[in-house]
């Protein structure tokens, strides 16, 4: 693997470039489409160079939305998505780290059962419980609200499980030393567990933010007012036009806008993530 052979170098690069191109090309096409007029992609020949409609397309989409497709301004939807994704990510981390703390560090009746019930819900996809959940949320009058968007997806078995596994790797003596040092359970949690979990929290934040941002089915079901639309739903709205042509240039601009925040989160958080990995020690 450490040989220096020009041909092998060429081959590895070729494979990498092909792989990257396969992934990037559709995204590139989407970007090109978002910079051109509505008719350009209907001609049969797909253009590969940026057009001159960039500001017009994005401006229209962010400001007024698509009146033709009945989609609200994208700025509003981006805001909704951001609120939802942040609430989901922070909520999931807060709830799961606390439940993992309870399951690992406290002896109470039903502890093992509680853990297994949490663990079993890992296997249930959101779609399985979506109708009963809808019924509950509807009966509670939480349709068309942020609490209705966020609360049903805020508990995370995966995150609870990950935190539990991490807590189990912290030597029991650390907890005992803290007890002897006069730290109660909450102080131990705050002073010792939380700082040690930094890396895990950063990693989970990335995953959970993207999970929240990409929620599609659930927001579709419970929001009927455009005021609460999220951006992923918005794309669907743009694309599904009943009469007339779909404005692909706007759809693609919407796609680019929707894809941007998760990418930014990854780029920004990855630095924290690596920093956490380097600095934290168990």
């Amino acid at each position, binding site marked *: 693997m450490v040989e220096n052979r020009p041909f092998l170098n060429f081959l590895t690069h070729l494979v990498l470039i092909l792989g990257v191109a396969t992934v990037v090309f559709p995204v590139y096409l989407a970007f090109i489409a978002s910079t051109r007029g509505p008719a350009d992609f209907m001609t049969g020949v797909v253009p590969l160079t940026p057009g001159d409609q960039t500001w017009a397309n994005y401006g229209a989409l962010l400001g007024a939305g698509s009146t033709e497709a009945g989609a609200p301004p994208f700025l509003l939807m981006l805001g909704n998505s951001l609120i939802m994704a942040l609430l989901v990510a922070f909520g999931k981390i807060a709830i799961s780290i606390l439940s993992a703390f309870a399951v690992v560090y406290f002896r109470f009746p039903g502890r093992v059962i509680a853990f297994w019930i949490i663990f079993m819900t890992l296997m249930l996809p959101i779609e399985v419980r979506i109708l009963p959940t809808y019924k509950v949320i509807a009966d509670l009058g939480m349709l068309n609200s942020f609490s209705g968007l966020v609360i049903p997806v805020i508990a995370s078995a995966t995150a609870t499980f990950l935190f539990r596994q991490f807590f189990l790797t912290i030597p029991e003596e650390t907890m005992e*030393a*803290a*007890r*002897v*040092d*006069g730290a109660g359970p909450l102080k131990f949690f705050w*002073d010792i567990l939380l700082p*040690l979990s930094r890396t895990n929290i950063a990693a989970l934040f990335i995953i959970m933010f993207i999970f929240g941002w990409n929620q599609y089915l659930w927001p579709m079901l419970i929001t009927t007012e455009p005021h609460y639309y999220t951006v992923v739903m918005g794309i669907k709205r743009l694309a599904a036009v009943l009469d007339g042509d779909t404005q692909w240039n706007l759809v693609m601009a919407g796609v680019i806008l929707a894809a941007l925040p998760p990418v930014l989160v990854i780029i920004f958080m990855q630095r924290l993530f690596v920093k956490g990995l380097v600095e934290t020690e168990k």
Partner: protein
Amino acid sequence: MASIDVENVGKIYTGGVRAVSDIRLNIADGEFIVLVGPSGCGKSTLLRMIAGLETISEGQVKIGPRVVNDVEPADRDIAMVFQNYALYPHMTVKQNLEYGLKNRRTPKAEIEARVTEAARMLEIGQYLERKPKALSGGQRQRVAMGRAIVRKPAVFLFDEPLSNLDAKLRVSMRGEIKRLQRRLGTTSIYVTHDQLEAMTLADRLVVLNGGRIEQVGSPLDVYHTPASTFVASFIGSPAMNLVKGELHGDKLAIGPSVIDLNGYAPTSGAVTVGLRAEDLRLASEGEEALPFRVDYTEELGAQRLVHGSLGDQSLTIALSAATELSQDMRIVIDPAKLHFFSAETGKRLAGGAIVGAISSAAQPVA
């Protein structure tokens, strides 16, 4: 500073497993007590019950005049040093030292003073801003001890603190722990499975086996008058030789060989005889002696351990490195240095001049 009274303490884990039974132990103020025994003998459990990290199933523990059975570890006025140091990895050395004091709302100036003093005492002053990861094992161990010292507790509890260190460091840290304890005069309980550590550190040794106390006494008492074959084989290195023998009047028969006891026979009939490797020596010409067949030798530099057999029973003797070896040798032992144990119970048999002479402070537990 405080005395500790352990009164009829027992531990039964959920599921009914009994780890410790009926421990009675009075520890004087300032005393250094070492709990020693093989793994699984309950020594750590006992220590953790005194620390408050395990609940006490039976009996009670008193620190000073106060019964602490239901007192949180933090309120027992103890400090503990763990085997894996248990330092907080995300805090600097200084923060590690301060943490317990901060939790007790000690004034800032006081914290500063105590941390500085502990750091000076343990020579970790230049590492105060480092994280534990950047320290060697020995330095981490010092920090762990510093964390105990700054608290100025009534009792130090050590749970095999040197087990993770290399042999050389262990010896020097052993000396340091002893010196610190002398200097601070704090009552200490130290758990170890290493009999050498136990011998060198203890004011009094507590030998545990199967959750019970086998013997309590000063290191030399325990060494010279082990209360049972278990203690005899556990304390001292190399372990005491234990061979089957039979007493006939004033004569001891080991296999086919018979030696004269000069009045040291405590009883008659079958006994287990204990012989320390270093009490055995080569017989001179014409002396009444035991035949010894050499299997192999271990060179220790200053002396050599010769492993072999006496009849069909194996035996180890310690000889000076200058001694000439041959396949078959003849060995003798002063009858006064023989230890006799009951062949059935393994308990030390009274009688023999040596028992009365040395065991004044030993407390064999029935």
